[in-house]
């Protein structure tokens, strides 16, 4: 089976079948991602997580989904009706459109586009519209703050995200996701472009608004941000979007930096192994995202923006420039690897610059003064 041979000979029947399969897999994945996240986070917090619904709580996700579907769909009186009601779908559809071009295994996706990467960038940008709609249409001030924060954050971080991926595209010489995966059959691109990967991972967290960039939905400040007024099925659409885009981004990232289905031995061991590779790699990505979420605090919006514009953006531009020189003059690929590694080290040094200055425990605790009564 490949992209050339359509099911039943008609390309549109073929497309529908493939989309249905992708949506089905996505739904089940999302249900188990929510379950998995609850279990995983619970382990970090010395809890058990869901245990009651089915063996070790395995049906919890389905129970939650059913509950959400049957809940009352509340619309605040001062909400802008159509904007409010359409917002969840406007957020979800772009994510679904991204899933269409992702190669899950060799020659298996819904459609493979020769400009697949460009398509992903273009479609992901639409996501912001839905979130803005949710923020502005809900008639709630927390939602408004959340929506505006989300817009600022996602638009800013899209630039380093795109630039870091372009660095890979330069080396690959193509925007075709399937070909990019194929090129990494023996050596994933993360070895050549560690800096680009770091930038991608950071920007990805921001695009997904996961911790430490969960500013638009900050629970302790604006109590859910743009989703604050949604309930029932519309709220679950946002949840679906969040986890589906996390999954989509994970597959996208693993295709671009870790060789997707191709590395290691993807070509030799058949499609079962390729699918397994896709799921293992995206799973590892998702676990890393959850790990970060349970560990680190949240940034403030101005710190977030300055990190994007003053650190990530210049670094990704430098990365592009260096790649350009190396490729133009045909220098060995080790140069790419080394320069990018140096950049990555610099980025980590920038992040940890406060850690150097951090107050040492002994110094502060030891600095006792004699207790004295002020006059």
């Amino acid at each position, binding site marked *: 089976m490949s992209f050339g041979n359509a099911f039943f000979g008609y390309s549109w029947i073929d497309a529908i079948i493939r989309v249905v399969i992708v949506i089905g897999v996505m739904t089940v994945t999302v249900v188990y991602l929510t379950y998995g996240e609850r279990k995983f986070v619970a382990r*970090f*917090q010395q809890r058990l997580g869901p245990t009651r619904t089915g063996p070790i709580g395995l049906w919890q996700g389905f129970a939650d989904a059913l509950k959400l579907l049957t809940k009352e769909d509340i619309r605040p009186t001062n909400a802008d009706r159509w904007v409010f009601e359409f917002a969840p779908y406007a957020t979800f559809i772009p994510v679904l459109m991204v899933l269409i071009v992702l190669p899950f295994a060799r020659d298996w996706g819904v459609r493979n586009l020769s400009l697949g990467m460009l398509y992903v960038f273009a479609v992901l940008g639409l996501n912001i519209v839905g979130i803005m709609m949710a923020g502005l249409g809900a008639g709630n001030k927390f939602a408004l703050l959340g929506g505006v924060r989300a817009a600022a954050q996602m638009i800013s971080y899209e630039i380093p995200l795109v630039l870091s991926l372009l660095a890979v595209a330069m080396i690959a010489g193509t925007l075709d996701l399937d070909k990019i995966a194929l090129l990494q059959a023996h050596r994933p691109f993360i070895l050549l472009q560690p800096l680009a990967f770091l930038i991608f991972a950071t920007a990805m967290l921001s695009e997904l608004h996961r*911790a430490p960039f969960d500013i638009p939905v*900050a629970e302790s400040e604006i109590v859910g941000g743009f989703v604050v007024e949604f309930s029932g099925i519309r709220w679950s659409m946002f949840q679906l979007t969040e986890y589906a885009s996390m999954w989509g981004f994970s597959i996208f990232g693993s295709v671009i930096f870790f060789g997707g289905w191709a590395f290691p031995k993807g070509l030799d061991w058949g499609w079962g192994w390729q699918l397994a590779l896709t799921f293992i790699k995206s799973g590892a990505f998702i676990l890393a995202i959850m790990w970060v979420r349970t560990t680190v605090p*949240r940034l*403030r919006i101005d710190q977030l923006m300055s990190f994007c514009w003053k650190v990530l953006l210049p670094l990704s531009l430098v990365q592009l420039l260096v790649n350009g020189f190396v490729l133009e003059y045909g220098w060995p690929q080790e140069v790419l690897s080394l320069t990018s590694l140096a950049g990555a080290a610099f980025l980590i040094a920038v992040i940890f610059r*406060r850690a150097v200055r951090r107050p040492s*425990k002994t110094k*502060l605790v030891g600095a006792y003064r004699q*207790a004295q009564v002020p006059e």
Partner: protein
Amino acid sequence: MTHWPEQLVSSREAEFDTVDMTINIGPQHPATHGVFRMVLRVDGELVTDCEPYIGYLHRGLEKLTENHDYRQAMGWWDRTDYLAGLCCEGAYCMAVEKLAGMQVPERAEYIRVIMMELSRISSHFMFLGAFGADVGSFGTSFAYAWRERERIYDLFEEVAGDRMFPTYFRPGGITMELPENFEARCRQLLGQIRQGIEDLDGLLTGNEIFIERCCNLSPLDTERAIALGITGPILRATGLAWDIRKAEPYSIYDRLTFDIPVGRQGDIFDRFFVRLSEMYQSCRIIEQCLADMPKKGLILDPKLPKTLRIDKKECYVRNEGTKGEYGVYALARGGTKPYRMKLRSPSFCNLSALREMVVGNYVADAVLILGSLDIVLGEVDK
């Protein structure tokens, strides 16, 4: 504090006819740690004004005390600073003892100090956990803190029969003798507490984002803090080693050696760190008490009258509560009830600095600043 250049502000106002937005945070909001409400006026993300509203938890503590027997009113005082009920009981008992001229047996004093320091630790754990959640660490710090707090409360339950509101002290001593294995249990608990503090320290203190968020945020200098009536860890964070346990030792604190952790500039990080360091000091105090405590002896003088009758007298006593100076003013005019009881609650006084610290900062920081004040609404609203 973020300062916007003057010309920027004025030109912006001239260009766009912008209106500040009012956000109502609380009384039901995860950041307010209780039923506190603050109305923020925000210009975008920047807070231009902040108005706190309190009183949602007012239970008329002072009036209730004035209408009850000296011993009956004990239970109300647990519920002021409900995160460290025993410290409040301690202050109330000290006030009544001073009025009635009672002597507390030595063993009872030691037990009181152990229990008060354990309450202080549990209250500070609550602060660390909740503050971590305010900064946004998704409940992990909360779960760590909660684990240790549960262990402390388990010990309280073993000793006094209740977890949050033990009502364990009485004017003149304590109610019950300690359980058999108390010392071993307490030492084991101290080990666990130290581990718990280390865990929270490792999770938060060195984290770059945490430092980025907390350092240099709303620094307070000592003079201003004193002028606002701020006491406790927030005052110590400004660099002044003012701790009533040292400055005006009550109970047996003059016999114990411990240090007063102080901060450097009174910013949010210092407040956090002073509390963290204080917990180690409390552990030290408890260890000394366990070692020095008389193994046998009275805990409550059996010859005390059944009903306390106090002639005309007044007093003001204060102890170092977990949030600051916890002062009790008592006025007796004969009879079995106090004529007037007044609580100087540290949370309420500390809250007076809120507006000053919040204005000019971001909305996200307002939540953090409120968290760093570590208010307990039972104490604010009395």
